[in-house]
């Protein structure tokens, strides 16, 4: 790839980021005009507490999409993990220190399994992760059909804890996104995710361990889902097999809104971060002005189409 095309690509991505950032500012200003409670620290704090679940799942989705795949199992995985956490902690509230690593390890393992299946069986990731989603969801339902379990106070505090007045979840989210961004830009392995997403065959010919990178991307997606599930369980206090159902498709929206293209190889975590902010803020604003959730669906669909329309380069 020549330096010039690289430069054009980067500029295009910057343009995508700029568009989303401008939309964010417009939205914030509109929110300030429409409701005097919208731009208060209190509401912004609330926003950030909600942000972490969608944010983490979308971050995981970003790795996979950049690598040229898609992970449709994250929703079921988050649901299964909340059920595991709430039931485990109901049984032994004193073992929080054990439950959290267990959940993260299990989540990473499921993600890695997704990656392994696409690599070993050479099956389209859509099919593999859909199938896995069905298996995980069915398995969770066989264990527990209704929401249940409980969490100890110390664990619930994770969701509401503050570090120097800033919600812990916000600090964690920003820190992880920053790390992820640095990792993707500055390390060999991180950059190879872009290579594999851009042209898998070329990456292979260049001697990159393509299969390992694919598995790594899916494992990271699983890990991110695990972190999301921890904060979600802490906030709701129960395990609910269905809680993640909508999350799968929701996690794709911020990724594409942020300018990462579904074909892989182009985009980045900054775009996803802006995308998550935009989606969450828009929903919050629509709630403030009492737009029914039904119309919020319509708007979400339109946003996907418009975002993709803006970011997708014209063919030929």
């Amino acid at each position, binding site marked *: 790839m020549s330096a010039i095309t690289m430069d054009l690509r980067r500029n295009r991505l910057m343009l995508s980021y700029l568009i989303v950032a401008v939309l964010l500012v417009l939205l914030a200003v509109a929110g300030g005009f429409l409701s005097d409670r919208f731009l208060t620290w209190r509401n912004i704090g609330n926003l950030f507490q909600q942000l972490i679940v969608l944010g983490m799942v979308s971050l995981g989705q970003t790795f996979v999409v950049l690598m040229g795949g898609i992970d449709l199992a994250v929703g079921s995985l988050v649901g299964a993990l909340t059920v595991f956490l709430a039931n485990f902690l109901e049984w032994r509230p004193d073992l929080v220190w054990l439950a959290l690593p267990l959940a993260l390890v299990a989540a990473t393992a499921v993600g890695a399994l997704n990656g392994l299946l696409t690599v070993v069986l050479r099956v389209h990731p859509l099919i593999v992760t859909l199938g896995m989603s069905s*298996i995980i969801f069915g398995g969770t339902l066989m264990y527990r059909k209704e929401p249940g379990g409980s969490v100890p106070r110390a664990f619930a505090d994770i969701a509401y804890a503050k570090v120097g007045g800033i919600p812990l979840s916000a600090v964690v989210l920003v820190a992880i996104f920053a790390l992820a961004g640095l990792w993707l830009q500055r390390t060999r392995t991180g950059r190879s995710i872009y290579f594999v997403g851009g042209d898998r065959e070329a990456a292979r010919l260049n001697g990159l361990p393509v299969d390992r990178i694919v598995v790594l991307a899916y494992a990271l997606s699983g890990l991110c889902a695990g972190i999301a599930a921890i904060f979600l369980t802490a906030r709701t206090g129960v395990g609910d097999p269905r809680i993640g159902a909508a999350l799968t498709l929701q996690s794709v929206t911020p990724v594409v809104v942020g300018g990462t293209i579904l074909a892989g190889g182009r985009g980045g975590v900054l775009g996803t971060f802006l995308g998550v902010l935009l989606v969450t803020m828009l929903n919050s604003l629509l709630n403030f002005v009492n737009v029914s959730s039904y119309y919020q669906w319509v708007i*979400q669909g339109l946003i996907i189409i418009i975002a993709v329309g803006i970011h997708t380069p014209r063919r030929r």
Partner: protein
Amino acid sequence: MAPLDTPMPRSQSISLASVFERYGLVVFLVALMTVAALASPTFLRPANLVNVLTIAAPLGMVVIGQTFVILVRGLDLSVASLMATVAVLATAFKATTNEAIPMIFIAAIALSAVVGLVNGWLVAKRNVSPFLATLAMMIILQGIRFAYTGGAPISTLPPGMGFLASGRIFGVPVNLITLAFLAIAFGIVLHRSRLGREIFMVGSNPKAAFLNGVAPDRVVILCYVICSVCAGIGGLFLLGYVGTVSNWVGQGYELDSIVAAVMGGVALTGGRGNVFAALLGVAVLVVINNLVLLLGFPIEMQLIIKGVIIIGAAAFYRTRLA
């Protein structure tokens, strides 16, 4: 490049593997039915078989359409949402006599065609990935539907709708007759007509198709319209079967239809597949579901088995990464 009026090239060599690939699904289905018959004496009773087929018919209609879209390297996630929206539209007439049925069908097909047109336009003209275009359509239809109904179920339906869905003519379920009619009609379109050959060409190599004077965009859009119309008709038949319209009629059909098509050997990479094999995939799926019930397993087991089978089937057909 062969001119368009010559038949599709077929591989002439008959190896064991190719025979297995072509008839493997039939063997699998027969094996599955044998297991079912051995496991439960209820399975082979005509009442149960007819019941299974009646449940399968609306799904079969959706799968016919899904096949067209997958053949041109797409997929349609909006089919289930469209089925429910069509069902809500049917009740919006608040008709209590059968005279309204033709109107309902015309309105449903018109709405479906518009939805398919938008999907196809987004994919072909705007270069939006099929996944995102139809995902967005799924959410938008869902929003519009709920905004209209407020989330409440409705049940004002002409009595004839119920007959269409579960009635019989000479002992054969009406919806099966309809499915057979649709399958033969669209089967002829796909496997015997010029349009069908163009669909296969566009699916296997859009550039080559373009150089041969085929307009890929037009073909792709047409496939999405066909898919939506099939889903819309399937929605009406499912509605008649269920009787009342919850806002989620057809939920899960988007995945089931893709599963069935993939199991029937329709390649997600486009350009390879057969409507009738896809329908065999439907048969396998419903027999599995029925088997789980007859064996008294918890119904959640269907989800697990379905998941394993879709991955296994796709691996079997070696659906390569797109």
